[in-house]
């Protein structure tokens, strides 16, 4: 973590404390100390760790679905503009529909549980993954494909070396953006239609007017979002360094 990043984080906490002391309304903005002690209480309960594991599992599942559905569909849409044009309205609708609008469909069809949050979160992130991948495919260097045609390179080798290599940075970008947003979306959907998870804890804290609890859980969500994004970036860097710091395929 860079010094600038740590200083920026420290400035945010300092600003929070100053505003809390000026306002002196713990119901709106509790102090750092109150929030910290509520967080410590949470950390000592098994319920919190169960909720964290449940949310992490849902985030992992959402990311896997986004990756394994988004990348192939993105490649298909990039290669076949006709199919892309045909599916574009549906994609636009899915992209524009607010999370809350799915609620009725999800609760009546999937019930309250983990499936609803996973379904809604996947739908929320999927269009971004598809569109990013499709634009990656469309920006592919056509001269490389011509070269492959001249040498009659089989489709599988072409997909691996030309498409795979060109899409690697786009796949990384998709994962980074999805990781940053997945925690947020999963927590919102758990809040709305989940039976366990950090989002449900947030709902309970709101019902109990436990403002420090809401801030503590939100802080956990922010930390997890930033941590997982940085962890992904770090793993990517280690992977590249293990191959001499060069952009390459596995």
């Amino acid at each position, binding site marked *: 973590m860079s010094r600038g990043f740590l200083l920026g984080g420290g400035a945010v906490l300092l600003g929070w404390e100053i505003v809390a002391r000026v306002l002196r309304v713990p119901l709106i903005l509790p102090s750092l100390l109150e929030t910290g002690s509520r967080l410590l209480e949470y950390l000592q309960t098994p319920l919190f760790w169960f909720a964290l594991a449940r949310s992490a599992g849902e985030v992992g599942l959402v990311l896997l679905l986004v990756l394994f559905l988004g990348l192939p569909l993105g490649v298909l849409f990039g290669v076949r503009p006709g199919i892309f044009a045909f599916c574009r309205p549906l994609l636009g609708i899915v992209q524009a529909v607010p999370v809350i609008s799915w609620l009725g469909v999800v609760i009546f069809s999937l019930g309250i549980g983990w499936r609803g949050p996973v379904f809604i979160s996947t739908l929320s992130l999927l269009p971004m993954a598809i569109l990013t991948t499709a634009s990656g495919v469309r920006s592919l260097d056509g*001269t*490389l494909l*011509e*070269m*492959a*045609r*001249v*040498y009659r*390179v089989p489709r599988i*080798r072409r997909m691996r*070396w*030309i498409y795979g*290599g*060109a899409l*690697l940075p786009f796949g990384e970008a998709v994962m980074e953006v999805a990781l940053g947003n997945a925690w947020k979306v999963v927590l919102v959907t758990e809040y709305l239609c989940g039976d366990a998870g950090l989002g449900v804890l947030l709902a309970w804290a709101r019902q109990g007017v436990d403002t420090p609890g809401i801030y503590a859980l939100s802080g956990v969500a922010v930390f997890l979002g930033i941590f997982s994004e940085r962890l992904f970036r770090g793993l990517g860097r280690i992977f590249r360094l293990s191959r001499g710091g*060069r*952009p*390459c*395929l596995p």
Partner: protein
Amino acid sequence: MSSLIRVANLGVRFGEHRVLEGWSMKIRFGERVVLLGESGCGKTTFLKILGGLQKPSEGDVTGMPSRVGFVFQGSRLIPWATVEKNLRFANPACSVEDLLERVHLSGWEHAYPRELSGGMQQRVNLARALGVEPELLLLDEAFGSLDLRHKFSIMHDLLEFWKRRRCTILMVTHDITEALFLGDRILFLRGSPSRIAGEMEVGLPPDRSPWSPDFLERRGTIIRRLLESSEDQESKSRDCRKSS
């Protein structure tokens, strides 16, 4: 020598714009043919047709061999693959060491294209084309971006390969020295849409020196021929303008 490729009345048009018109030629097995013409006269389009990248609007090409090597104008190497992977992309069974030795790049198999100079990338481009054991080798202004030393060095490598394998070479260029250094036969392209306006047997041994009197004399002949034809064309277009 048997006839390998026959091009019959070939024409290409993009919409209303005709690029090639009535191209006919026979290329014999093991021959080194050069198409010499100005930029934009459809030389690359012709090579794309032979390489299977484009279909002609009229006419046809017969007798194309199955193994074709293509040395592109830009190197067209996969940026995220090593030299070795680039060579194996075209032919997984090729002998990388042998190919790199042939183009004087031994020891560079694990380098990435961005780690190579333009001349070295072009050598890999050539090695990739040779790696498919081509019966026909197409060269699209392959040496245009190289400095003089690298240009002659790569052309020399190519001639060495040809002496061993006797594949057919078809090169397009606007450079007279390149054409004379590599070609057995030179076809002159002219006009718009371009046509084959004439041909010349070079009549020099494969090992050529660009400063030998024979080479320089033929160079002079080609220049004179090209200048005379361009004057002819200018006077014809002047007459056309006057009459209209």
